C-alpha cells in the first residue's frame, strides 16, 4: 500500500533537515581552531586553545600568519 502523501512530504523534509544538521555539525567541527604537535616517534598531541601551552601556540601561529600576510591576487 502506498504511503499517504503527507507522510512522503514529512519524510522528505525530515531528511533534508537531518542533512542540514549534519552539515552544520561538520562545519562547526572543522572550523574549531586546533594545535597539533607530531613527534618523530609517531606520537601526536592536541592542545586546546584554553590551555596555557595551546594559548602560546596560537599566539606564535598568529604572528606567523601576520608575517605571511595575504596571498597576492593573481
Amino acid at each position, binding site marked *: 500500500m502506498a504511503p499517504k502523501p503527507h507522510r512522503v512530504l514529512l519524510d522528505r523534509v525530515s531528511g533534508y533537515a537531518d542533512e542540514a544538521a549534519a552539515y552544520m555539525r561538520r562545519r562547526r567541527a572543522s572550523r574549531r581552531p586546533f*594545535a*597539533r604537535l607530531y*613527534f618523530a616517534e609517531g606520537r601526536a598531541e592536541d592542545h586546546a586553545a584554553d590551555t596555557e*601551552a595551546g594559548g*602560546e601556540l596560537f599566539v606564535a601561529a598568529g*604572528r606567523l*600568519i601576520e608575517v605571511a600576510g595575504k596571498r597576492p591576487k593573481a
Partner: protein
Amino acid sequence: MADGETSEAVSGAAAEAALAYLTEMSPDLRGAAILDGAGAVLAASGEPGRWREDAAALFAVADRAGGGPVEQVHIGTQQGEVFALRHAGLAALAVTERFALASLTFFDLRSLLRDLATDKPLRTFDVSGDVKSPKRRGADDGA
C-alpha cells in the same frame, strides 16, 4: 633539530628556487620560509628577520608544550593555517589559507627539505620533461 641529522650547507639560491617552486605549486600558500639548523633563514617570502624570530618562537613553544623536540606542528586558526616541519637538519614553515590539505602540505615541505639536504633541489618536483611521452616512459623503464 629534532631528527638529529645534519645537513650539508644549503645554498640560499637553492632554497630560494625551492621556495619559489613551492609557492607556484601551492594555490593555498600565503607565505613560507626555509631555515637551516641554526635557525637562520635561507629563503623566505617576506621579511627574513621576522620569519626567523617567529619560527624560533613557534618551535620553542612547541618543544616546551610537547616536552621534547617536535617534528611537525600544525595549527589551524580562523585566520589561516600554520605548518612547520623539521627534517634533515632543516626547517620549513608554511602559512596557508584555511582548510588546506594537511597531508599534502607536509608531504611537499618534507620533499623540499629532503631534496635540499641531499643537494638535489627540486628533484621531487621536477616536471620539466613530458612525463607522458613514450620516449620518457621508455627511459624510465631503462629501455
